[in-house]
């Protein structure tokens, strides 16, 4: 052992800063709690805390939708309009996670906003629209998502939205037109709704149309009939004659997006979509599931048509989750043994100890159902 290694090793370990040392003392003084547990009692939105938000306002939009304005914790890293945020809401005392698009660009007051449409029987959306009050806290994750406009913004845009699918798009529009020099983009928005009364942001969009900032095409199922995208006389091409020169962004229910995808593919046009729910195979309900065991010893009997995430949560297992529709990877866990079925396409993923990756095969629990007994390392 040479002596000159000693000063070297001590130099390579940087001396803890005063802040770090204080934290060490504080944590020794409050164990088994963490310092953060104690600070949370007094300042849950401080920097360094798990990301949370306080609801500062709930504004009704239509009878069945509302905008929720949230003051996020200090560590909120900002977002790009069109992105979404995962929120954890306590409904009847139980924390449930869902995903909502951000409906503003960055705001001067530092708040973020979501607009939620209450789905019949929807546990979280009904709660958010009808029962949340300012002052309540919710859990947040950082913004995510690739449904954002390219930079620089192209000259001609086509936005197609239906129902609550307007939410990421209104964020984009608000952001474009809140700037000192509004964007010079030529924007057509085809906004589809069941009826005028159900149209979220109707007046705001009409005002943008009246100012000549966008060309607004409103379609109401009760007045115009269901929009048939590919129809030669009443379809998209008839509504937007210069369709082929526009870059299209669309958000809405699966039926509309599927039709658009086919339509644009046939014309060789580029299309960016945002889906709120996964498209699940219809005939998986009858398949048998199996017992799912977790590393902590819990055992959950899971149906073959139900995501492992839902089954495990219902049985009281704490599960990581995010969008709950297979896009964010927030729910990925290693499958150690057994088989799971992808609910979107029926594909099987199999893990065999000794053959597949010893660390497990990563699966998305939100769109995977048990296909027989399986074990998950969690």
């Amino acid at each position, binding site marked *: 052992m040479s002596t000159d290694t000693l000063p070297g090793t001590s130099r390579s370990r940087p001396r803890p800063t005063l802040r770090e040392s204080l934290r060490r003392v504080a944590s020794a003084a409050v164990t088994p709690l963490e310092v953060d547990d*104690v600070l949370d*009692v007094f300042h849950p939105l401080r920097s360094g805390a798990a990301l949370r938000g306080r609801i500062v306002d709930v504004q009704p939009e239509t009878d069945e939708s509302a905008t929720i304005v949230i003051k996020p914790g200090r560590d909120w890293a900002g977002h790009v309009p069109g992105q979404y945020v995962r929120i954890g809401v306590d409904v009847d005392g139980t924390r449930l996670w869902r995903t909502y698009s951000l409906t503003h660009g960055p705001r001067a007051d530092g708040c973020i906003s979501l607009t939620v449409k209450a789905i019949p029987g929807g546990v979280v959306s009904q709660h958010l629209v009808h029962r949340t009050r300012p002052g309540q806290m919710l859990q947040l994750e950082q913004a995510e998502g690739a449904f954002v406009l390219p930079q620089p913004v192209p000259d001609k845009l086509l936005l197609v939205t239906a129902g609550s699918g307007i939410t990421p798009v209104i964020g984009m529009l608000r952001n474009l037109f809140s700037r000192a020099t509004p964007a010079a983009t030529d924007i057509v928005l085809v906004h589809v709704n069941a009826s005028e009364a159900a149209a979220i942001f109707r007046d705001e969009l009409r005002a943008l149309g009246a100012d000549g900032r966008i060309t607004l095409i409103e379609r109401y199922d009760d007045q115009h009939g269901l929009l048939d995208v590919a129809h030669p006389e009443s379809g998209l091409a008839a509504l937007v004659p210069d369709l082929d020169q526009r870059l299209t962004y669309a958000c809405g229910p699966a039926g509309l997006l599927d039709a658009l995808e086919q339509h644009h593919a046939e014309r060789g046009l580029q299309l960016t979509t945002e889906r709120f729910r996964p498209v699940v195979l219809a005939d998986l309900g009858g398949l048998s599931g199996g017992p799912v065991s977790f590393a902590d010893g819990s055992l959950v009997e899971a149906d073959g048509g139900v995501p492992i995430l839902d089954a495990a949560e219902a049985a009281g297992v704490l599960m990581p989750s995010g969008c709950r529709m297979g896009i964010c990877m927030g729910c990925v866990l290693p499958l150690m043994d057994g088989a799971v079925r992808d609910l979107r396409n029926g594909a099987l993923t199999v893990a065999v100890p000794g053959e597949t990756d010893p660390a497990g095969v990563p699966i998305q629990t939100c769109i995977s159902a048990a296909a027989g007994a399986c074990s998950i390392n969690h």
Partner: protein
Amino acid sequence: MTVINKKPNNPIENLTPEDVEQIGIELDAIRQDVLDSRGEKDAAYIRRVVGVQRKLELGSRAVLLVSILPPAWVLGTAGLSVAKILENMEIGHNVMHGQWDWMRDPKIHSTTWEWDNASTAEAWKHSHNEVHHTYTNIVGKDNDLGYGIMRVDEDQKWHPMYLAQPLWNFLNACFFEYGIAAYDLELGKNLRIPKEKRSEVFKRNTKSTLAKIRKQASKDYVVNPLLALPTGSLLPTLAANVTANLVRNLWTHSVIMCGHFPEGVETFERKSIDPNETRGDWYVRQMLGSANISGSKGMHLMTGNLSHQIEHHLFPDLPSSRYAEVAPRVKAIFARYDLNYHEASLPAQVYSAWHKVVRLSLPNGFLATTTVKNAPEQAKLLWAMSTKGSKVRRAAQARLQQQARKLEVAKAA
């Protein structure tokens, strides 16, 4: 007390299998009602208790920074004692039971909670939730019945070493958190195994328990006293922490003793338990193997609602805040089936439990046959039984029991 199936008037003998099944159905219905109505108010309750506890503990520790001043010492020590009791009982014990897991809040969840106690959450959950709650009051299986070191039942053979049992019990009460840690590690059993043969699990658990004890002790006896050093309050703060831990230990020990130890709580024989015990059978064992403490709301809170020990044992994973509400319905079932709902005030239950500890530390029948007048002779007899070998012991024991029986017959007449 004797295991239940050897008793002359075995209280469950009158229950038909149909009765037992019906009891199971009725208790399940009560449980379901609570599950169905569990919600926002319950979540708000536990969050409030956690918030109050944290503020109380922090406030008390802040006051102790100037505990050189006697009023500050008294206030800080009292606050810290209460905070530690709340943390262990209404919060820690119940959270680790999974009573709040349904909230899916990772901060209040049985899989993430660590408590202010020497035993690790991991080890405690195993010995308490799995062993004690499954094998409640089965002699030889449920180590809660005396932590493996005591004579808890007449049927256990008396030995002179049990004379020291009241002292052990008192010492265990004073150092209860370490007693629990040792018990969770099954230290006694494991230390008898040669070192190289001890299981990996035991070694791992011992290591984590020691690490936990080190952290706990440095917090209470080093870091916090040092923080108070600038005001000259190091020693008072140290004393305050010692006191608070002692108070917490004595209190929790008393509450735990009251739960299963008072006279009249039934114990069960290992072989009398059907390996295919039904849900109803299990419920009945829980009903008769637990005792409640009656008292004020504040007392229930400070016992972590273990004052509703019967309800807790029937429904260990229901929120503790709901036990008071279901108690009348549970009590009605006891009444309908003519079973004894064991309930008394805290002093009465503590006395009763201690009485049993003392009684069983002596040979069977000894306490019953002792009066002020015959005390010197009895003392001589005890001395002989303790020093003269097993033959003398057996003969004396037989005589004592005979006398005790005679006394009982005379009393009954």
